[in-house]
């Protein structure tokens, strides 16, 4: 198994350790996951599937919890910024 995996976060290639979650890729990209309902930036927070702050669009599927999904090569992650 390769040691790293490369995904795209908002169109930009990001390389993370193999086994990393989408939440990790979003943080490694220096991105946020979403803007809150009143427009404030939010990023992964609880890390264990509870708070839903890390939700983003993964391979076209909206509202996926990034902390519960592993990065796969070429995965396309679209967040709010």
């Amino acid at each position: 198994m390769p040691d790293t995996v490369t995904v795209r976060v908002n169109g930009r290639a990001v390389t993370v350790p193999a086994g990393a979650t989408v939440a990790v890729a979003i943080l490694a990209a220096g991105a946020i996951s979403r803007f809150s309902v009143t427009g404030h930036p939010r990023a992964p927070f609880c890390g264990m599937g509870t708070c839903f702050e890390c939700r983003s669009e993964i391979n076209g599927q909206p509202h996926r919890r990034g902390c519960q999904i592993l990065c796969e090569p070429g995965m396309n992650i679209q967040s709010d910024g």
Partner: protein
Amino acid sequence: MDSSTHSHFDVVVVGAGPAGIAAAVTASDCGATVGLIDDNPTAGGQIWRGEAHKTERSAATPWFERLVRSSVKKIHGARAFYVDDGMLAAEIADGTRTIAYRELILATGARELFLPFPGWTLPNVFGAGGLQALMKSGLPVAGKRILIAGTGPLLLAVAAYARKCGADVLGICEQTTMRKMMRFAAGAAAIPSKVADTIRLAWALRGIPHWTNSWPLAALGNERVERVRIVRDGEGHEIKCDYLACGFHLIPNVELARLAGCQIEDGFVEVDAWQQTSVPRIYCVGEPTSIGGVEMAVVEGRIAGCAAAGHREKARPLLRAREKYARFARELKDAFALRHELKAIAEPDTLLCRCEDVPLERARAFGSWRAAKLQTRCGMGPCQGRVCGSAAEFLFGWGTDSVRPPVFPVECASLASITSMGSSTGSSTGELI
């Protein structure tokens, strides 16, 4: 999301942390067919996250080896959202799965208690266990300046792990007092494995400041956290950092047990000597019955695994061990009980509900959880109040114990799958629609 699959097991275990793995493997060894379902991409839960792929051996290793050797059917990435009368429904990546059980073991673990304070919603403010989970999931932290705050032994473990990953751990703000910490450490000395853990931790943490009587007042920064204001022995300090990891110990995940109708007492699931809940054939193990740590979770899992597979006599030798850990659980609770000053760290305009951006004062004005939900949408977002509801219980003393299906937000197709499930089992799910 249109596929729906169905399966049947003698014993279904929800949650593949230490308690769930121990329960599943034990029940399987007793001859039962076992399904182990878990929300995470791999087994281990929070405390054993990533342990299955480690080369160095640990307390988790023998359990992972037994799990691999066993005939337990592992279903990962499956979020259980409904339970009724011998049937469980879970959402998976490409559909739903309904799973029939003869006996059900709930090992749903705990989450962190988060308390609001100014700036707690800024990017790079994490839970303490939250940062731990993200580091174990591959987050690089080398060279990052990390401040750790909140309460409980978890803070020490997070600090040690962050340092091992190359982070610059600036300090640990522990809200309890030094006296309580010392009394707790003396009590833990009754359990040999805890003594070994403590010695290892003390060595791993050498040189990192550990402040008792200390808690965060505000996280400051523009786009992300840049500084944290803390109080330490009554004096304010400001610390520059890249990450703040803050959690106020653990609260049990009892939503599924509640939905199943299990008796809950003081926030925890009531169980008998065999870990059976008030609902026959439904067992509960690990943190949902009491916050007692990994050793207690494993013992409880083994007891329930034997009992659910119809071999109570095999569980009998384990009962005494559980009692020893129960004492530890009580000491843990006393040592890290939250001080009342923490009720005052949020400002009126600090957000209580992160999902719906409801300020604390707006929610508080309605006087009860139900009224605040109805009038402000507090707790009505995707986390279903798991974060703000638990905070409101501590801050305002509100009861937030209502639960209704689905216990996690799911797609419409998943809801449709449980309505057909209801008709097949003859139970009423009509209230859902």
